[in-house]
């Protein structure tokens, strides 16, 4: 039974990586306001949100199966307190931090109306920390790190997110009000200066 838990931990970890990467890519695309006649923009944001929630489900499965595995004796503390594990302390600790960051990101997204857009945006920037921490956790802790299937999966996920990031940086701000807003701010500054 415990060996099945171990296989499930590894499988759920890999699926979590793929889902999280997909959610990050969709998040970047939604910022870029990517859309077409067949793909309205709210489809990107809706899928981004649903993928993030799915990521949490598989992440929970990954954590729970790892913790309840009687062989590893990780304990529940490992799941919530970073670097408290006796086993591969650094790599598991990074995974714990990524887990908590994702929890914070999803929780604040669910109560976005209450906390306000600015606070939500600041917390959402943590995604750019959570995702690489998750990848490094997988590479450092993972039993399967150098297995061809897991390595290929990691390369594909990193490639997808890196491509989306570069595209975002190159494309710049897609906000149609960027120009008028800058002109307005410049005009206000001119008026205020003596």
């Amino acid at each position, binding site marked *: 039974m*415990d*060996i099945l838990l*171990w*296989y*499930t*931990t*590894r*499988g*759920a970890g*890999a*699926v979590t990586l*793929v*889902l999280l990467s*997909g959610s990050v890519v969709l998040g970047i695309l939604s910022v870029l306001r990517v859309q077409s006649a067949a793909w*309205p923009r*709210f*489809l990107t944001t*809706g*899928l981004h949100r*649903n*993928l993030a929630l*799915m990521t949490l489900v*598989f992440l929970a*499965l990954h954590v729970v199966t790892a913790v309840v595995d*009687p*062989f*590893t*004796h990780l304990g529940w503390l490992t799941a919530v307190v970073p670097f408290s594990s006796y*086993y591969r302390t650094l790599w598991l600790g990074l995974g714990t931090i990524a887990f908590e960051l994702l929890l914070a990101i999803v929780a604040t997204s669910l109560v976005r109306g209450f906390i306000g857009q600015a606070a939500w945006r600041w917390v959402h920037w943590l995604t750019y920390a959570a995702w690489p921490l998750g990848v490094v956790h997988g590479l450092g*802790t993972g*039993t*399967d790190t150098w*297995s061809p*299937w*897991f390595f290929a999966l990691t390369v594909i996920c990193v490639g997808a997110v890196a491509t989306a990031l570069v595209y975002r940086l190159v494309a710049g701000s897609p906000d149609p009000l960027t120009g008028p807003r800058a002109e307005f701010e410049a005009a206000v500054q001119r008026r205020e200066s003596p």
Partner: protein
Amino acid sequence: MQARDVALRQLNRLTTGIALAALAALGVLSAISAYTIPGTATTSSTAATASTGASSLTPSGLQSSSTPATSSSGTPVAVSGGSH
């Protein structure tokens, strides 16, 4: 309004499809991980070594836990391989 309903249906279909694909992937990737690094069940002699408190190296060269797992029959069994 109709276009919005169509897009919402599309979102639901995509979400359901991805959820089912993720479940299938969980099974497939767990099976692949089991196939590539299955871990091994060793006999009670290994468990006895582990129970002394000293960590032991498994045949695959990976470190095993210091406490052995116990099978349902009560016979001590240490499982090794990868994280195990």
